[in-house]
């Protein structure tokens, strides 16, 4: 087997040193009833070429996003990733190293984590960010738990702007940890919800997403004020992080915790993962924050260096008193984010956001001209919702037949909600061309 260096001669010699007759002897503590003599019922080893054939066959059964006019968003976005990113994250020293527990020989990882934390704090408009979470949705769950710790209260209110599957993740955690939760009905663009009225002395936090699940941009200022007046925190969720290159960041609208999905920067779609959760907050809450943190310090020679710090919050020290059970971050995805963001810089990030917004505006204009289509959004970034004259799920399937991946039917994530049945959520990024938009409009006209 190509990955196993020991030869039969090696094994014999080593058994001699150990003083065992066979490898079986080394497994003698395994109860006899559980020892398997033969092989498990699975195929035998394969060479590289055979393995490649297997995956090539599976890949051929998918429609790759890049092969068609593509307009799907809903918390995962297709952006162009510069070639340098994938090259750099595949360097052995990044790819095949462990968590930087030995800082003397992990400064590479530690320094980029520090740079990542800084970038995230800057774009969200917050004081401090951690070294990443698994993804946006799990980060959202952790943010609610953190708000409970900070306020010593047990109830969260989720706005109808929140991605339904983020809400499901929060609900799952809350149910099992015996916390209370109020989930507002889906908030369609053009409607409003009175979230301030839901905040009581029991409320630890309100969770609002912007751009919202239906693409609408939401003002957080009044909600922040209402929450703070009752001693509650505002958690802002940003599932499309490119938006912050053009849109007022939650940190400037009074958010106490900002959770983001960082996939859009540096990371591909990957059918849902791995992604990279962004998590930022105010200085005063840093010790209640979940996840890893990297901090600056000096070494024995007085040179600047970086270490994981404030780790007494974490499970390996506090065990059952830890702020979270999280053990890993999203290291390599977080590196991809950092590199892509470094390439973009101030000007590139802003320009990318502007291009995305322009692409979505142009698409909305184009689709609005298709008979029967109504665009619902007033303020949006690169995603919007349209009302169709028939159920959106059927339309999306019919568009796929015509070779256009046209978006997400709201009913897929909100099954059984009658008022969203005809709604289609559409995203457009810098990858879309005029030809893509024309192809979409033409196909839509045909299937409606």
């Amino acid at each position: 087997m190509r990955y196993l260096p020991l030869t039969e001669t090696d094994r014999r010699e080593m058994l001699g040193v150990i003083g065992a007759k066979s490898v079986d002897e080394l497994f003698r503590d395994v109860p006899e009833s559980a020892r398997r003599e033969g092989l498990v019922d699975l195929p035998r080893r394969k060479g590289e070429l055979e393995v490649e054939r297997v995956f090539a066959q599976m890949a051929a059964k998918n429609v790759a996003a890049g092969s068609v006019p593509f307009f799907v968003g809903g918390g995962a976005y297709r952006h162009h990733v510069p070639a340098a990113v994938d090259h750099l994250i595949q360097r052995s020293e990044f790819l095949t190293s462990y968590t930087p527990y030995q800082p003397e020989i992990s400064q590479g990882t530690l320094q980029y984590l520090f740079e990542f934390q800084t970038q995230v704090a800057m774009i969200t408009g917050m004081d401090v960010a951690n070294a990443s979470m698994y993804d946006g949705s799990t980060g959202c769950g952790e943010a609610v738990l953190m708000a409970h710790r900070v306020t010593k209260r047990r109830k969260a209110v989720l706005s109808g702007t929140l991605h339904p599957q983020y809400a499901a993740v929060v609900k799952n955690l809350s149910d099992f940890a015996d916390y209370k939760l109020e989930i507002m009905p889906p908030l369609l663009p053009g409607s409003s919800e009175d979230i301030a009225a839901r905040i009581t002395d029991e409320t630890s936090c309100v969770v609002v997403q912007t751009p919202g699940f239906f693409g609408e941009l939401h003002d957080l200022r009044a909600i922040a004020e209402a929450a703070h007046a009752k001693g509650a925190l505002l958690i802002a969720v940003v599932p499309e992080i490119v938006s912050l290159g053009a849109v007022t960041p939650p940190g400037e609208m009074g958010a106490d915790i900002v959770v983001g999905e960082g996939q859009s920067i540096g990371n591909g779609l990957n059918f849902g993962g791995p992604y990279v959760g962004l998590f930022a907050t105010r200085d005063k809450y840093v010790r209640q924050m979940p996840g890893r943190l990297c901090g600056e310090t000096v070494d024995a020679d007085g040179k600047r260096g970086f270490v994981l710090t404030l780790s007494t919050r974490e499970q390996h020290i506090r065990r059952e008193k830890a702020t979270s059970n999280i053990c890993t971050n999203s290291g390599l995805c977080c590196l991809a984010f950092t590199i892509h963001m470094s390439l973009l810089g101030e000007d590139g990030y802003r320009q990318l956001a502007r291009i995305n917004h322009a692409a979505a505006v142009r698409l909305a204009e184009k689709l609005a001209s298709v008979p029967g289509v109504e665009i619902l959004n007033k303020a949006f970034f690169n995603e919007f919702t349209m009302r169709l004259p028939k159920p959106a799920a059927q339309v999306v399937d019919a568009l796929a037949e015509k070779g256009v991946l046209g978006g997400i039917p709201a009913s897929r994530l909100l099954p059984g909600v009658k008022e969203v049945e005809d709604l289609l959520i559409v995203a457009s990024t810098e990858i879309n061309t005029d030809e893509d938009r024309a192809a979409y409009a033409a196909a839509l006209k045909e299937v409606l």
Partner: protein
Amino acid sequence: MSDIRFTDQHEWVRVEGDIATIGITDYAQEQLGDVVFVELPEVGKELAAGDEAAVVESVKAASEVYTPVSGEVVDVNSDIEATPAGVNEDAMGDGWFVKLRLSDPSELEKLMDENAYNEFVESLQ
């Protein structure tokens, strides 16, 4: 100093009048290592004996500090909040944590005196 009492969780309490000053022992600070963070209660809070009064953290360990006696918090040591190293430098003096107004002085009787505590610490080593 006979007015100091100790717990087996390595807290000390010194009483002057009806005011009890509470801290962690020299042995405790040595075991923790460099103290990096201290969280203290709000003044005015009522604590019962055995309640968590504070949290103390070093790089490698975090520990709750429990009050050995009941009473209302009348003062906290904001110096060690700003400069946690103070706990390592003078745990039994300037590195105190909180002052309580004693509500039940009889609780002191259940605690160890200095000799008993020293013997207890020796038994741990």
